[in-house]
């Protein structure tokens, strides 16, 4: 008899086998009864996380200097140890982030009191949309003004 397939999230035997198409990508995942129930087999994020955990090639063992968390721990728990782990496992996590989130960098708000890059970024998002609209509406005067504003914002947001 062949070896039973193990659950993508824990070591139990998998009894739920799923394929799902999200944004045109096929993902396959194997889950045990408990994880399927807990994670919600219909939840695309959990689904893709499990998929990323099984298919990503095993990285050399990394350990977070701040909290001692290792990549083996991450495989077991699917959660990180502390904020510094994001730096420790940065490269290894990027691939996973692209799978789970389809993006690997933040464009939202920032904590109050720090640089208002969030606001600049929000304005940049909005200005880009407005420019597209202006072009569609053949309002080239507005589009040119927005283009200059976008260039200015991009300059301010570029890492020094």
């Amino acid at each position: 008899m062949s070896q039973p397939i193990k659950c993508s999230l824990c070591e139990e035997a998998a009894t739920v086998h799923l394929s799902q198409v999200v944004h045109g990508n096929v993902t396959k995942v194997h889950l045990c009864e408990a994880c399927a129930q807990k994670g919600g087999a219909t939840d695309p994020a959990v689904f893709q996380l499990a998929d990323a955990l099984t298919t990503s090639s095993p990285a050399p063992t990394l350990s977070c200097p701040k909290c001692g968390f290792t990549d083996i721990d991450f495989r077991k728990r699917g959660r990180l140890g502390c904020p510094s782990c994001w730096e420790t496992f940065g490269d290894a996590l990027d691939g996973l982030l692209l799978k789970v989130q389809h993006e690997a960098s933040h464009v939202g708000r920032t904590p109050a009191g720090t640089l208002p890059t969030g606001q600049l970024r929000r304005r940049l998002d909005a200005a880009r949309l407005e420019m597209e609209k202006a072009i569609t509406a053949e309002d080239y005067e507005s589009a040119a003004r927005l283009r200059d504003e976008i260039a200015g914002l991009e300059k301010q947001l570029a890492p020094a």
Partner: protein
Amino acid sequence: MSSVEDILAAENELTHLLGAQQAVVLSTRIRLARNLDGMPFPGWAKLPQRKEISDRCIEALDALPKFRRGHVLRMGELGDRDRAVLVERHLVSKELAAGKSGAAVISRDQTCSVMVNEEDHLRIQVVKAGWHLRGTWHIAELLDDALGGSLKLAFSDRLGYLTACPTNVGTGLRASAMVHLPGLCLAGHMDKVSRALNQDGLAVRGWLGEGTEAAGNVFQISNQQTLGLSEEAILKHLGGWIKNVVEQEWNARRKLAQEEGEKFVDRLARSLGLLRSARLLTSSEAMNMLSHLRLACDMGCLPEERRHLVDRLMIEGQPAHVQARAGQELDSDGRDRRRATVVREALKDFPEVVPPTA
């Protein structure tokens, strides 16, 4: 009076706000995941560290005007039933209730609740009855700014707000709507709608969140992606889809009412009759019948001003609520008997179901 009894007794956003309730969308919810800089995440932290995290977060929250005269509830100090009541009210998650070192800080009107030491150090939640995405977001944004002013939050320029799980990093934002979709369910379209939402990056869950069945045709629809999109873009994406789902739901309802005619009214009238005379009522039976009453209120088959009472019964008909109201532990039959009594009592002076006007 314990804090949880106080919460049960208080008039609040979801169960009492006469007039705030809307057809189709029961409530709007915003959740932000935040963590303290330099501290391990709750799942990896040692007990003394979790204690320190909890003390620091509660101190900061307690100082905010929003939580004046609110509740600070430490899970380790609450009994099983009280914790179950909080879960049923969506004030805390099952995960927080299951652990001992978690806490919840809840505003007096129960619109804001912050979970401390859940998967992340802080989970800010704001909920409003009906569909109010902008207003709900605005409250969460102000709370987030206030907390960011008194606590140093874990943030990276590239990845945004750092969280324990990669599915929350970036904005840490989960925006959701609790929607009541009996029309789409009766018409057999729910699977199709659910798939379309999933494919466009939105999750569809049952009444109590992850891994729960959609009792009473109530679903929670939320964004999945938290990174690489601005909060604005996330809210816009969800908002567009909710508008679309609400429209489809109304189309399904109207079509159903038109095609079924008397059968449609009969179904709603039977549910009212059953709820008014049953002596034993299970939780899922009550939810499904109450779903028909809510539909009747939306369609003009019952007076619209009764809708908030239906919403209240949906929340208060849940097992822990029934027991808390009875003030004692009840076995399954006891709960069903008690639930039937509460529902019968509440619907005593409901008028008869009439043909739809909507």
